[in-house]
């Protein structure tokens, strides 16, 4: 897999894979964001959308090698964002205490079938997607870094 390619960078797979990846990875990321934002309207939701977002970065890492993906998404940022997602979900839950009880849906219900509806559910979806996506990507990153450290020994 790791063969020296003439051109932009040495790490990663062949030129064909890199070109296709450059064309598709943005679309995959956009599709993940779409699944998250429409979680309360169509099948999917925070968990599935988060995994798709994580997979887009994993795709980038497989095709271009570790360094490109890490430059786009450093490990510190990953752990910060994951904690941010968890805190966001918890604070949405605590926000319900303002209306009387834990996890109460205090925002307006809105009109069904419109994007801005269902109160706190879209916000919870975004928080969960942040947590799941970044968390799974961080696990993959940790495993890759471990593999690399093993090879250096």
């Amino acid at each position: 897999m790791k063969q020296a390619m003439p051109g932009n960078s040495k790490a990663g797979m062949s030129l064909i894979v890199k070109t296709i990846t450059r064309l598709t990875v943005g679309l995959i990321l956009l599709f993940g964001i779409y699944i998250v934002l429409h979680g309360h309207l169509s099948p999917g939701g925070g968990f599935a959308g988060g995994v798709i977002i994580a997979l887009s970065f994993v795709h980038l890492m497989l095709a271009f090698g570790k360094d490109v993906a890490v430059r786009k998404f450093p490990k510190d940022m990953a752990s910060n964002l994951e904690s941010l997602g968890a805190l966001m979900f918890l604070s949405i839950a605590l926000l319900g205490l303002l209306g009387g009880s834990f996890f109460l849906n205090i925002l307006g219900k809105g009109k069904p079938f419109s994007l801005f509806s269902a109160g706190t559910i879209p916000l919870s979806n975004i928080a969960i997607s942040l947590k799941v996506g970044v968390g799974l990507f961080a696990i993959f990153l940790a495993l890759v870094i471990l593999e690399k450290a093993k090879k250096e020994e």
Partner: protein
Amino acid sequence: MELHLLLLFMIFAAVVAVEVKDLLSSVIAVGSVGFALCLAFLILKAPDLAITQLVVEILCLIILIRATLKKDLPLVIEGRWVFNTLSTLTFIGVFLFFAYLALKELPAFGHPLMSVAKRYLDEGVSKTGAVNIVSAIILDFRAYDTLGEATVLFTSVIGIMAILRRPGRRKIE
């Protein structure tokens, strides 16, 4: 009331797990915290979470005990077969008795089991405003369960990052 007792027990067991010197006793104390948490979930009416907690706790205990103990536990059976057989038969009898009581309470075959789920289906859209019923259930009616699962995922990611980070590996070498 029971919940407060359980919480006190969990705090006590956690302190024991940190303070005790013997590694196996510490693992057992951690396991008792987990099983008390499982009971607490049952009292709080979250059966799905209680089942998950129970299964995960058993798996973790097995792994931790296997990691703690270097060799197999000696199994002494000579000269105690009367006691062993009697206790086995007693426990089978107790289990069958309670299983009979529990099975009698089940609704007859074909009766609607999902009286709660039917309410979710009827009132999901009007109460939450979300058209996707799955989202409405996991993020509104059953948001506690989702919070528990998110916590489990968060903890597992932290654990993996802590085990696989590089400074920790350097130290061992």
